């Protein structure tokens, strides 16, 4: 079994899907000849030719808008936007068309397409390279939002995204692109979109998180374990549609919930999860649902980023706070 890091798993999934399905095409800025600034699409052009993996001009709206047309005309475009902060020029196409074409045409025109991009901070990069905009997509009906946290998940989820009959926003936490490796099965497998993963069972508290924060959360949980606290950790994998069942069941068991997100705190994904738990498991709650998130400020340039990024220590503190809360 190949041992891969996250970005290699992206590449591996693309490679296998392009092999399996000739209608899959991959393109984006620098995604062709060079294989992407993170090397996620490396070797694809050489292997599948310039018609199936190619460079584009710097025009994010153009990339997404052209993909819409291609998807209507029989292809399965998997487009790369170079960084999370450069998705905004494509928002009109994404919100006004990608999410809507099926509904608008009452099922005649559907868009089996994927929009991939590296997301999140923590790589000491320039401005606009560290955003966590997932909630902006999650609020839009008609989209699915996926964020993997391991190489195994990356392959399974990206494969599922490419095969999905509907458009999928596939966010890749760039901070962990090369953070660790894992055995990734060669064979074909998919991880169902819309299903969360209980990465650690526990009784004392439910922690819901996703993407790069899973790793940080597990670190904090290890510390908590040492104190005899055993949180259940749910890796969302899919942000929209939310796996409501998984969250609610866990909270019904533990009575407490903490949501850990990398994005700024207010109006984020964590808020929705808390609202949901209120609606569905209010009487089970033994402590106020809590959040660990970034403060509501613009991501600082790297010399200030350490003050901004949620870290295991903060998560650990919040775990204690939630677990020790007495009603």
């Amino acid at each position, binding site marked *: 079994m190949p041992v891969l890091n996250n970005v290699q798993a992206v590449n591996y999934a693309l490679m296998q899907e392009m092999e399996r399905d000739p*209608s899959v095409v991959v393109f984006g800025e620098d995604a062709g000849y060079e294989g992407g600034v993170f090397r996620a699409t490396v070797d694809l052009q050489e292997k599948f030719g310039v018609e199936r993996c190619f460079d584009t*001009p710097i025009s994010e709206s*153009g990339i997404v808008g*052209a993909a*819409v*047309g291609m998807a209507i005309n029989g*292809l399965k475009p998997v487009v790369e936007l170079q960084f999370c902060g450069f998705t905004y020029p494509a928002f009109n196409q994404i919100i006004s068309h990608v999410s809507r074409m099926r509904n608008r*045409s009452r*099922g005649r025109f559907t868009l089996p397409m994927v929009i991939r991009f590296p997301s999140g901070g923590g790589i000491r990069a320039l401005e606009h390279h560290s955003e966590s905009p997932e909630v902006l997509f999650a609020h839009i009906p008609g989209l699915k939002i996926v964020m993997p946290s391991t190489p195994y998940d990356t392959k399974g989820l990206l494969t599922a995204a490419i095969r999905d009959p509907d458009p999928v926003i596939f966010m890749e936490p760039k901070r962990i692109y090369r953070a660790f490796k894992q055995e990734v099965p060669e064979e074909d497998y998919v991880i169902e979109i819309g299903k969360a993963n209980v990465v650690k069972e526990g009784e004392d508290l439910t922690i819901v998180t996703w993407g790069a924060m899973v790793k940080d959360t597990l670190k904090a949980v290890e510390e908590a374990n040492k104190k005899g606290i055993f949180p259940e950790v749910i890796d969302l994998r899919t942000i929209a549609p939310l796996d*409501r069942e998984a969250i609610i069941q866990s909270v019904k068991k533990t009575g407490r919930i903490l949501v850990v997100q990398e994005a700024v705190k207010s109006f984020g994904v964590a808020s929705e999860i808390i609202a949901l738990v209120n609606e569905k498991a209010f009487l089970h709650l033994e402590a106020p649902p809590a959040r660990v998130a970034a403060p509501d400020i613009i991501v600082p340039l790297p010399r200030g980023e350490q003050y901004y990024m949620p870290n295991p220590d903060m998560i650990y503190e919040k775990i204690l706070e939630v677990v020790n809360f007495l009603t």
Partner: protein
Amino acid sequence: MLVDQYSPFEGKMLQILDKDGNVLDESLVPQIPDEDLVKLMKTMLYTRTADRKALMYQRQGRMLTYAPNEGQEACQVGSAYALAKKDWMAPAFRELGAWLQRGVDLKTIFLYWYGNEMGSKVADDIRILPVSIPISSQCLHAVGLAMAARKRGLDEVSIAYFGDGGTSEGDFHEALNLAGVYKAATVFFCQNNQWSISVPKHFQTASETFAQKAYAYGFKGIKVDGNDILAVYVATKEAVERGRKGEGPTLIEGYTYRLGPHTTSDDPTRYREEQEVDEWREKDPIKRFRIYLERRGLWSDEMEKQFVQEADEEVERAFKEVEQSGNTQFDDIFKYQYEKMTPLLEEQYAEYKAFFQERGML
């Protein structure tokens, strides 16, 4: 090639029929079978009939917001006629003539303007995208359609319609630029109808013509008299053929005029002179084609009278059907968000259904 002979930089505009139906240059007249010439006339007339009645229904409170077409029939019918069945059309929102020429039935079109998404579910064998409201966003879809065709080894061409105002949007630019780079077989058809709601075209761009904008993208543009169906057809045909042969995109500026209001919510007397409208009425695309056909013995007052009466009745029938059965089905607003409803949507669907059922609203 016409695109070479009619350089927008030299102020040239392709015209075959003048406003009085005279042929300006016999050598340019296309070989169109008589039968088709008559059909084109009928489609323009049908378009105008349907358009006027839509406006009337709206004024009667029976139809919702509608974007009138009057004056632009030649641009639309002529260009759509140049397409093969396999070709793709990506309209904006004022393309009644193009939709009809493409073969979409009026009932479907009316259903859309009546406010029901089912009006965008066109028959499977007709290659037209739904109305695209965000200005020029559809230009990119047209490029993608053509790129996909090429990649799949098909010689399908796409056409995108947009207005003079549409050229100001970033998406217009990105579409033309991509089409240039990939030599996409896309015809960009700019209906320069002189106005973008209340804003005249010289406030949209300082460019002398819209056609010349093509040169920024490494391909050619041509300005045609958009009220001359023969000129529109000939220019589009050449563009389609060039696209089909792999010679890339073309930008066509159809120089025309919106005779009616922007939409039924608009009052054009606020921002333009009656006199300007009158001048353009003189250049009516139907009028000149009528004279041309009459001179060729293909058309007569009588034929027109009879056809318009039939059209009138047909349009009336179509709209009445829409009025009777055009309401949106409750289920439909939930059913097409995804291929399969998510659990959340299932729940909301059930909740809402119960709510409206309890109140006798379903």
